[in-house]
């Protein structure tokens, strides 16, 4: 076995040329994943990257780990099979806003409710990249795209609210342009024992350039976003001078010293849900970080625990037992 301790980010690369557009946000995501896997000392022969179809879903080909480039929308289901079949495998899902929320929305919510121990990275560029620019379930209403030349009439999902509504035990949001933040979030996801849903805002330079610029550009970022850090006050602003205070269902902007402490580990998904509702309010900063992080049994453990329990109780079955049951009889 390779000496996993010494691996570096680049050791997680495959020998295949990376083929995203120059400037695509995907580059920073893959390098963040590669470096946190190295930092966490993961064994590349024990990692499986499963994806669907989309620009983002080419990800596994560029990783030096095991990988499965599935079909459109089915990454979560394929990955559930991998993980339940062999819970020892460090199993990741790489998906897009189309792949994971449009055609794959059902598998997404079901894998979250079942708490399959998967690390799910949703590359949200609010567009279908690979098919060249149609609106996705996260494209803002009214936006003109190739299939909405007069503006999209569909109201979009809030991916975090959807995930929390489905019962996600871990839900987080980060940005392609903030690798440090992204790595911290991805690390937390990697270490979560259960389904970890991470939405990454990812700029598609070709078909939706600047979709996130109001929150990602350096000059506005500090004022327009707030980092949710477990155990820390929710402060933001160029001078870290502002804060968020949650009173009941109301979240207000206050001065930094009045800010509430953020705690994603409360059992109720309520606080995270309320926090993600800020996205609707243009006067509020958008929160990033971990919205929820609670412990719950994972599907893969439950499946194997049940097998052990039943086997302990009934004894290990043999092929012969299965065929030669007590109701069989002999003809001589």
């Amino acid at each position, binding site marked *: 076995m390779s000496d996993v301790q010494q691996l570096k980010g680049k050791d997680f690369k495959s020998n295949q040329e990376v083929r995203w557009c120059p400037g695509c946000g995907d580059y920073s995501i893959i390098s963040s994943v590669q470096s946190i896997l190295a930092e966490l000392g993961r064994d590349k022969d024990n990692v499986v990257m499963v994806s669907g179809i989309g620009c983002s879903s080419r990800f596994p080909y560029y990783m030096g780990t095991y990988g499965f480039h599935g079909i459109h929308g089915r990454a979560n*289901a394929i990955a*559930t*099979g*991998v993980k339940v*079949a*062999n819970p020892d495998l460090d199993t990741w899902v790489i998906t897009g806003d189309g792949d994971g929320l449009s055609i794959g929305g059902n598998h997404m919510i079901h894998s979250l409710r079942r708490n399959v121990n998967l690390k799910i990275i949703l590359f949200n560029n609010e567009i279908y990249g690979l098919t060249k620019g149609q609106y996705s379930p996260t494209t803002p209403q009214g936006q003109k795209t190739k299939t909405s030349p007069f503006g999209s009439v569909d109201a979009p999902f809030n991916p975090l609210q959807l995930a929390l509504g489905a019962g996600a035990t871990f839900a987080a949001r980060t940005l392609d342009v903030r690798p440090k933040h992204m790595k911290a979030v991805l690390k937390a996801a990697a270490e979560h024992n259960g389904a970890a849903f991470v939405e990454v805002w990812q700029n598609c330079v070709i078909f939706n350039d600047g979709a996130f610029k109001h929150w990602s550009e350096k000059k506005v970022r500090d004022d327009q976003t707030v980092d949710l850090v477990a155990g820390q006050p929710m402060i933001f602003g160029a001078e870290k001078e502002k804060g968020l205070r949650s009173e009941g269902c109301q979240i207000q902007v206050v001065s930094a010293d009045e800010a509430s402490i953020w705690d994603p580990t409360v059992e109720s998904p309520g606080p995270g849900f309320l926090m993600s509702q800020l996205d609707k309010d243009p006067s509020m900063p958008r929160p990033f970080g971990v919205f929820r992080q609670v412990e719950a049994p994972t599907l893969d453990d439950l499946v194997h625990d049940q097998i052990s329990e039943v086997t302990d109780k*009934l004894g*290990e079955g043999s092929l012969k037992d299965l*065929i030669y049951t007590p109701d069989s009889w002999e003809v001589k």
Partner: protein
Amino acid sequence: MSSELTRQDDVTIRFAGDSGDGMQLTGTQFTETTAKVGNDLATFPDYPSEIRAPAGTRAGVSGYQIHFSSRDIYTPGDAPSVLVAMNPAALITNYKDLQPGGIILVNTGAFTEKDLQKAELDVNPLTDGTLSGFRVIEEDINQRTIEALEGTSLGKKDVLRCKNFYTLGMMYWLFSRPIEPTLEWLNVKFAKKPELADANIRALKAGYNYAELLRLFQGRYEVPKVEDVAPGFYRNVMGNQALAIGLAAGAEMANLKVFLGSYPITPATDILQYMSLMKNYDVITCQMEDEIAGVCTAIGASFAGRLGMTTTSGPGLALKTEAIGLAVITELPLVIVDVQRAGPSTGLPTKVEQADLLQSMFGRNSEAPLPVLSCATPADAFDCAVEACRIATQYMTPVILLSDNYIANGAEPWKLPDMDKLEHFPVEFVTDPEGFSPYNRDAKLARGWAKPGTPGLAHRIGGLEKDSKTGNVSHDPDNHQVMVDLRLAKVNGVADTISIPPLNGPDSGDLLVVAWGSSYGAARAAVERMQKEGVTATHMHMRHLRPFPHGLADIFRKFKRIVVPELNMGQLAYVLQAEYPEFRFEKYNKVKGKPFQARELKAHFEKLLEEKS
């Protein structure tokens, strides 16, 4: 009235009653006991439809037919010689199928004016001559059961529930069956509710004694056990059950663990249910959110090194086709079971049809060949499931195994395989990084299976075309042709390891009957009856439908006419005609949600032979 024991070699009984009358249970118990007695048998339960119909109506009638014999038999019988009718609806919807002169046991306790109305009857068929020509035994079984259970602690409703066991007792007496197996079964079943065990036992014994005491029937029959039966162990088995056991056995013979990703759908659900009981065999079953997730988890599990399986029926197979294409191009083993039912769309979901053959062969985008097999009888489902596992793992390919709900819910004695003689086919995972590439192939053209977690073998597979050598994504035109050819050649290569099915009859002659799936019994019985009458005809039953075994043309050549009876509009005939254009395959089709009867096939075959001469 005399009651001597009359020997009879072949009896078909149909139990018919309301869905709530417990006819399926009565039938199953009669079957179990009959199997133990050593008769050969075949059964056919016929549920009304998926939905519960109001009690007493015609739509609510549930039937269970058992054919048992002292000879080998292949079908649940065409026309029953005995009909048990628990209410007017059951009587009126079933009596026409009875043999002339057959016995009808009627529960007159359910023939009130209201009962007749529910069955849409203006006059009582017991009194208006409808049943002339049959031997009708009228008995108020409701009342008899109430009397038998007087003094128990049960309420009236529960008491009346025991009437099926009262009836079973009467039939046990009539056909000289022991009641002990059922007594034992009741004691186990109701171990925790002894009052119920007791009530049913009392009902059973009462029915038996009553029949004996009152000499209800004109005689009593004995159906001796099959004498020339091959020595060995036997067990009575239903098709879905045999299939479930076969899947577990197949995985074990491949030295793998099962992963079943499925979604309930009639009539395939039982397989998932049986297998979810196999936890102590390290069988994983996941009931997923839909059929697509079912097959996708199975594909993921195969990638991870288990044997992925998925079970469904026609509409579910339709949903899985895109993902099956993924299994074709990634060349992962996958067993897909389709228990066919009548369509199109939802169709007649509890009725039989064998119309998913073309879907199985061609229902995927682009050129995505895979092996297709089908089972013939409940016990055969075991062998076919093992065979599907063999092909899937030895050839690294998805395999579709077709069953149908006539097989799924039918039962027959299964001669258990000799454990020492089972030919295992253990999978050897790739472990050596030296020269590794995911598309390295063996002599059978199967690629090597390297599972995640194996040091040094990290690789990527997926739905895009791959280079035949490196396994990397390739858009090279010639490579695409190479891969398309390889995938096809691999599947065709399965023909090298299978053989021509045995011929039931001479190997040349006027008529060859080529059948598949659950038409086995009817086709074989029809042909054998003709042979007994001195007419030569031969029956060949196809297990492997893609690829066909080598050498079929040599057989076809030796017959003047070839007929293909199918419960569809001619799907196997279509395939045969396309693949063997030098011969003519005549269709004989029926799409009524019902199996073929031996006599209708025989009549048709005879007509064909007459035409010719």
